[in-house]
């Protein structure tokens, strides 16, 4: 009981301190510093309509590469920590006919919808991260509905690697053509899509990179689910 009271007192002090600090940051007022520059130049410099996407992929593409790496390391860590010699699904019962048929029918729609989200990243909200999560959710649905479903590891792992390699390759082509890593060569050097801002095929390499990020996030989250759902089986004989 003592520890609860002590913890609550300490948390109240921390909360008071945070509230005090935040009272100097007024809510709902314009305090943009660099955001204003991005918003005013986003259409000319990148061709994207969605400013958030332009910041994530174009202005700060290198950070995003780092974040994708963190995701990759986390996924690999899950695989390494749960590695056993023989792993299998240990589900006892299958879903009912309604659930199984429903997941069969919904699977293409969820995958198409994930593709819609990441290809329209520069026009509507979304992009590679939610699109990849949607695709991973489609595979999660199969794991939940069927007793012995497993992804094909031989297909998934190369796709995951190729998506990451593709991201770096796009950046290196930028380094070769322009002057820095992840230079937007399609938009700035070749000048494709300047006349149709707001239509689908515009915004330089943003759709390409978001497609690669979507595939990578999707395969990695699927890998995490796959590693967590399979358990070690002991040989009894």
């Amino acid at each position, binding site marked *: 009981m003592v520890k609860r009271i002590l913890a609550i007192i300490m948390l109240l002090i921390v909360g008071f301190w945070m509230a005090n600090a935040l009272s100097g940051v007024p809510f709902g007022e314009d305090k943009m510093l660099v955001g204003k520059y991005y918003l005013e130049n986003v259409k000319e410099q990148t061709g994207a309509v969605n400013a958030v996407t332009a910041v994530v992929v174009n202005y700060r593409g290198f950070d995003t590469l780092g974040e994708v790496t963190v995701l990759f390391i986390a996924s690999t860590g899950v695989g390494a920590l749960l590695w056993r010699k023989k792993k299998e699904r240990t589900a006892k019962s299958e*879903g009912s006919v309604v659930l199984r048929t429903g997941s069969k029918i919904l699977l293409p*729609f969820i995958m198409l919808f994930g593709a819609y989200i990441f290809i329209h990243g520069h026009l509507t909200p979304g992009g590679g991260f939610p699109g990849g999560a*949607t695709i991973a959710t489609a595979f999660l649905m199969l794991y*939940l509905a069927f007793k012995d479903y497993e992804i094909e590891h031989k297909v998934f792992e190369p796709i995951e690697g190729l998506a990451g390699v593709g991201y770096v390759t796009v950046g290196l082509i930028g380094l070769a053509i322009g002057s820095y890593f992840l230079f937007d060569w399609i938009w700035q050097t070749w000048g494709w899509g300047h006349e149709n801002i707001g239509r689908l095929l515009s915004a330089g390499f943003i759709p390409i990179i978001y497609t690669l990020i979507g595939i990578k996030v999707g395969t990695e989250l699927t890998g995490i689910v796959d590693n967590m759902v399979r358990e070690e089986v002991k040989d009894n004989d």
Partner: protein
Amino acid sequence: MIGINIYLLIIAIATLLSMYRVFRGPTTVDRLVAVDIMTTITTGLMVLFALYYKRAIFLDVALVYAILAFLGVIAFARYLEGGI
């Protein structure tokens, strides 16, 4: 845009009522049912707010909710019946 206040008021009361079941519900399944209903109500709320802001881009968020929210419920349900 005459009656949007009335609609929002009804939706707010509905959210509070279902929240009562989440807090009170004797079993986990009761809580899950209430959260499921709340998700459905939230989809409607998001569509209504998209109209209020007059921007079609907000509809995509409601679309994600409509498709994905049921999978969380199914995960809980499959655990409860001993399935996964």
